[in-house]
């Protein structure tokens, strides 16, 4: 109603401008198009409403009843999963960490997803994602022809996912403040140096992005590597790699997905890279230098640039006796 108006907004005490306009044309194409405002903004009981102080809770039940379900729909299941992950806030976290941890809205901004790939995702893979929220009963009747967004990949591209995670994880100052491990501090940088990172940056959808390895099909169950539930836990690596690599072995899973050529982590590779760089410069400079020196010597003996009239020795030698033209 009110929020339909273009200029709905205010300037707060700090001079910050807030835009309260909601464009219906855009909202009606978003994933939440069938959800009424009040379903999420449940604290609003009358119109016009009081100044908003609460935040929305994605675990709310909305007034949508999925087919074959007894209850109204809710994101409760995924929120529970998320709260247990490395990103979930626990009581023992220090205040600074509590504030830094992202919540639903940090990643999910009710966006307009675009199709990123023409390939159809396999039914099993789609189903695994459906079951994150929905009950399995009636799946074949109801979801197979409804889940267009999941069958054709219309979501964030791999590149956007990396950029999303990098928002916090590339902020080394913040990561240091939160006392994450040294490896995790430059995880984004090392990933970008890996073949996965390079391909994703160039637009590949086949190479693994952050979530492909760090979460299961649940996407929200990101755990630290010493947590046995996590996909990157040592025992689970084989299964994680197997999503793309057909025949992983115990040697294969030992390969560093976040490679680093730093002295601290891999001194041998570090010295090797310096040695190779030096030999590159050495070889090129020696060879080009020899060529220039050779040209200098031959020019002095009377060689000219172009072979014409049957010879390139048109010039006069400076050391030997003269040569007639």
């Amino acid at each position, binding site marked *: 109603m009110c929020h339909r108006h273009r200029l709905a907004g205010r300037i707060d005490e700090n001079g910050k401008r807030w835009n309260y306009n909601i464009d219906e044309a855009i909202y009606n194409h978003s994933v939440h198009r069938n959800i009424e405002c009040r379903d999420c903004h449940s604290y609003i009981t009358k119109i016009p409403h009081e100044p908003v102080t609460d935040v929305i809770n994605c675990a709310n039940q909305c007034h949508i009843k999925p087919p074959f379900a007894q209850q109204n729909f809710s994101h409760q299941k995924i929120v529970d999963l998320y709260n247990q992950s490395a990103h979930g806030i626990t009581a023992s976290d220090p205040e600074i960490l509590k504030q830094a941890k992202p919540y639903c809205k940090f990643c999910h901004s009710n966006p307009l997803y675009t199709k990123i790939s023409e390939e159809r995702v396999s039914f099993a893979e789609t189903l695994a994602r459906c079951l994150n929220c929905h009950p399995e009963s009636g799946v074949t009747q109801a979801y197979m022809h409804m889940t267009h967004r999941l069958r054709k990949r219309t979501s964030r591209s791999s590149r956007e996912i990396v950029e999303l995670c990098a928002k916090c994880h590339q902020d080394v100052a913040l990561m240091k403040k939160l006392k994450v491990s040294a490896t995790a501090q430059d995880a984004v940088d090392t990933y*970008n140096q890996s*073949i996965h*990172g*390079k*391909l994703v940056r*160039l*637009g*590949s959808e086949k190479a693994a992005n952050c979530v492909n390895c760090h979460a299961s099909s649940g996407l929200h169950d990101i755990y630290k590597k010493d947590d046995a539930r996590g996909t990157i836990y040592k025992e689970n690596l084989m299964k994680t790699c197997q999503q793309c*690599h057909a*025949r992983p*072995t115990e*040697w*294969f*899973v*030992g*390969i*560093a997905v976040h*490679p680093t*050529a730093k002295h601290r*982590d*891999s*001194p*041998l*590779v570090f010295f*090797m890279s310096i040695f*190779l760089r030096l*030999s*590159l410069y050495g*070889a*090129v400079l020696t*060879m*080009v230098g020899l*060529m220039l*020196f*050779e*040209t200098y*010597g*031959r*020019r*002095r*003996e*009377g*060689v*000219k*640039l*172009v*072979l014409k009239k*049957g*010879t*390139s*020795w048109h010039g*006069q*030698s400076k*050391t*030997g*006796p*003269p*040569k*007639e*033209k």
Partner: protein
Amino acid sequence: MATSSETISETAAIPARKKAHGEDYFTYVEGVGSIPRDIYKYVKSDPLGDLPRYSVHIVIQHLLIFITFMFLVTTGLPIYFSDVFWAPAAISFFGGIDSARLIHRIAGFTMMFAAAYHVVTIAAGTLRQLLNGQFDYKRTQIPRLKDLYDLIHDLKYFLGIEAHRPKMEKFMYKQKLHYLAIIWGSLVLIAAGSALLFPDIMAKIIPGTLGKILPEGAIGAESYSAFFQSLARLMHADEAVMALIVVAFWHWSNVHLVPGRFPMQWTFLTGKITREHQIEEHFLEYLNNLREIPEEREYMRNLLAELRLDASPAKPSPDRQTSAAQPEESGSEDSP
């Protein structure tokens, strides 16, 4: 040297140098005559090449390597330097990252095929020569101590200490060096490239085998798999960049920009080398050419006769010496 007066001054100059530079200056060839070392300044050459150097197989191999190298570089560099501004443009030129990777692999396998083709050609040719009793290791790419001496000799020549270039075989020191570098580079690129393309298989082969032999933790805290994959990642890119820089700044300069080769040395298409180039840098191979090619013998005999060097070199007379010295002073002004 068309007119007779020029020929006289020429004749006067060459024996004069013989005294200055010793007996090494003339090479006597049966049925041809005494060939002076700097005869290459007087011969006529066809820019397209006069004397055989490479068989058609080598020409095809070079073309294959050249074309695939171009594709490998243009698809490989933007992947390795994925954060530079032109990388996405280069990738979209090839139709996106997936097709760029496919092109890189196809080109890689084609280059490996060319390398295998080359090995077969060389092996078969060597075998044929061995069976005919014609095999001469001096005419091959096998490095010898002489190559080192040739290099020192050549450096002295460029400095002006030595009067003439060394007498070198079909492949001179820099070509042998480049050939060895290509062998090493190909092996590294193939091995490291396989580790990037088939990480699961290669991880089982290399670190899987070495891990059983070497003690745990011999290379520090890192695992063997991580180390070898990092090494493959590093070596594949570094060798490729080195190959590119060497080809772009050294090889192409040598065959396009160096005096006498500008604008292009046609050997890679015709398989032939120019006469002056052959005599200058591959004198001993030229002697082989004289032995094997009657027409070349004929040409050189006529040239020497024209220069009056066939039988007994004419003794330089004082007045001819001075007449020969005069054009040098006027001529040296326009040379840089």
